[in-house]
């Protein structure tokens, strides 16, 4: 177990370095000088050179990367060009906000998706299966940004039950478990949950179907175990993989939240990315993407390690 964890961790290091390299190069992929956004168009050549030295853009790329990664390892992602605030604090706040809806969505998606998947897997081939599979198909095919708009139209515009946009009643970014705050969370979280719901339902259906064909299930039934007892065994076998799928979904949702956050004006990473892209705030763009991608890399690692801890079959394969 320890050996596996260590091996998995060592394998992650080159990927993490590669990810940081991609994030670093993104800025240089951008057309034009990275400084054009900061400087007025009529800036003198002298000022331009000065700024270039200040931001370190005059050094060769490998040196720039080395300096950048050194600062990143010390928790310094540079300063936002637009606001002048440290990127790390902006990203930290945004990630927290995004995690709130991503986690809520994953939870909703997991509960509904597992239910659908178990039912569909158990009654494979019947109309129940087809209905459940149709719902999960709809979940993965729906453009979620559109679903968000439709939900806003129904529940905010027409019924007036829930707020259409925003991250809270006063815009202060405070969090609390009062309904006044939570009601802002409902629509974005429900909208976002359809993706993990569809994906988890599909995986669980396939899992349950596969487990049901295995010999041990027949053996359990043959020794006289009640249907409920057999069902419990099936669940226990499906759980590790289902949890792994759920864990990865959290990462995908956090990374892909930009569309939904745009629809609901939710003050998360998507909102930050949007601002960074359209104000050409490159340090902010770089920092946000780096944090999100590294989060995903380490989430992958954690999911793998946890899965192999609760399910020894994983290590052997």
């Amino acid at each position, binding site marked *: 177990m320890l050996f596996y964890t260590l091996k998995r961790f060592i394998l992650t290091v*080159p*990927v993490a370095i*590669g*990810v940081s*390299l*991609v*994030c670093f190069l*993104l*800025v240089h*992929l*951008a*057309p034009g000088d990275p400084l054009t956004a900061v400087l007025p168009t009529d800036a003198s050549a002298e000022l331009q050179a000065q700024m270039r030295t200040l931001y370190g853009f005059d050094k060769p790329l490998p040196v720039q990367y080395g300096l950048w990664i050194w600062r990143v390892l010390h928790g310094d992602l540079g300063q936002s060009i637009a606001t002048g605030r440290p990127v790390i604090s902006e990203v930290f706040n945004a990630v927290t906000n995004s995690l709130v809806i991503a986690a809520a969505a994953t939870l909703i998606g997991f509960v509904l998706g597992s239910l659908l998947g178990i039912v569909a897997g158990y009654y494979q081939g019947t109309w129940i299966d087809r209905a459940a599979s149709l719902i999960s*198909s*709809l979940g*993965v*095919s*729906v*453009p*979620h*940004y*559109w*679903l968000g*708009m*439709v939900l*806003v*139209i129904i529940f905010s*515009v*027409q019924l007036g039950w829930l707020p*259409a946009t925003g991250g809270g009643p006063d815009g202060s970014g405070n969090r609390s478990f009062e309904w006044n705050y939570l009601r802002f969370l409902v629509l974005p979280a429900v909208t976002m949950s359809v993706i993990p719901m569809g994906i988890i339902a599909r995986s669980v259906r396939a899992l349950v179907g596969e487990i049901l064909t295995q010999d041990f299930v027949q053996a359990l039934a043959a020794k006289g175990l009640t249907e409920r007892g057999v069902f419990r065994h099936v669940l226990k076998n499906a759980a590790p993989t289902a949890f792994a799928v759920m864990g990865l979904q959290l*990462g*995908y949702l*956090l*990374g*892909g939240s*930009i*569309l939904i956050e*745009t*629809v609901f004006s939710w003050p998360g990473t998507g909102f930050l*990315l*949007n601002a*960074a*892209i*359209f104000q050409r705030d490159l340090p902010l*763009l770089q920092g946000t*993407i780096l944090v*999100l*991608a590294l989060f*995903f*890399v380490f989430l*992958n690692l954690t999911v793998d390690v946890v899965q192999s801890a609760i399910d020894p079959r994983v290590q052997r394969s």
Partner: protein
Amino acid sequence: MSILQVSTSPVLTPIARSPGYWSGVVRRVSRDPVAMTALFVIVALILMAVFASSIAPADPFKSAMLRRLKPIGTPGFPLGADELGRDMLSRLIYGARLSLLMGLTPVPIAFIIGSALGITAGYVGGLTNTLIMRTIDVFYAFPSVLLAVALSGALGAGLTNALVSITLVFIPPIARVAESVTTQVRSLDYIDAARASGAGAFTIIRVHVLGNVLGPIFVYATGLVSVSMILASGLSFLGLGVRPPEPEWGLMLNTLRTAIYNQPLVAALPGAMIFITSIAFNVLADGLRTAMDVKS
């Protein structure tokens, strides 16, 4: 000489092929009513895009301030008018062109590049495999939407940049599938037999590997088309794809966002088009997958 020719010619004529795997797939798909409905919808959408100029009742660019945000069923505007008074029906019809172009182009390109990378890595193995697959791993480590947004955000808004970004997003997963299938096939006995009989690497790949690996990669790639549709329109929705005033469903959805208070149904129409397209491709991909899985 003439005797020789006569005697060899029957051997040279290709033997009539027995109904092969692919004709079986086509037969099975064509018996699946759900998949056929999806195919019908897709063909209709493509025809709509191709013949947009003859079908559309009005000019999709012609705006008029007086007709802004007309509801569905307004005389002359069967599906209403948008925020600039342009005919929604015509814009939705014309929108199929860019939306389908953006959604459909990335997958085949990524299929070719990803398969080439994956098959090479899987067949050659060793250092080549390590180099290709570890690079792929880095890109695979990004959540797909984030990578697409990051790339097109860095490259700048525009149709081509959006297409490039989405294609790049799909190469890693396709390459991974291609690599794992190729590695499996490579270790089979008939590849060894072909190598022992003196066949070169290219011949083996072309004759023995491609035929066996392209199927699974193809099935996987078809499942990506619906994701590509959603992602492509999503980029336009964010303002990173097609620029206004071009009609494109994602972009239309974005510009109509403020209209949800006055004309909610009109505002939701472009998204419904994306949904229909995406689900049709998804259902067809599911049908293909079932039809190609001989085991079940």
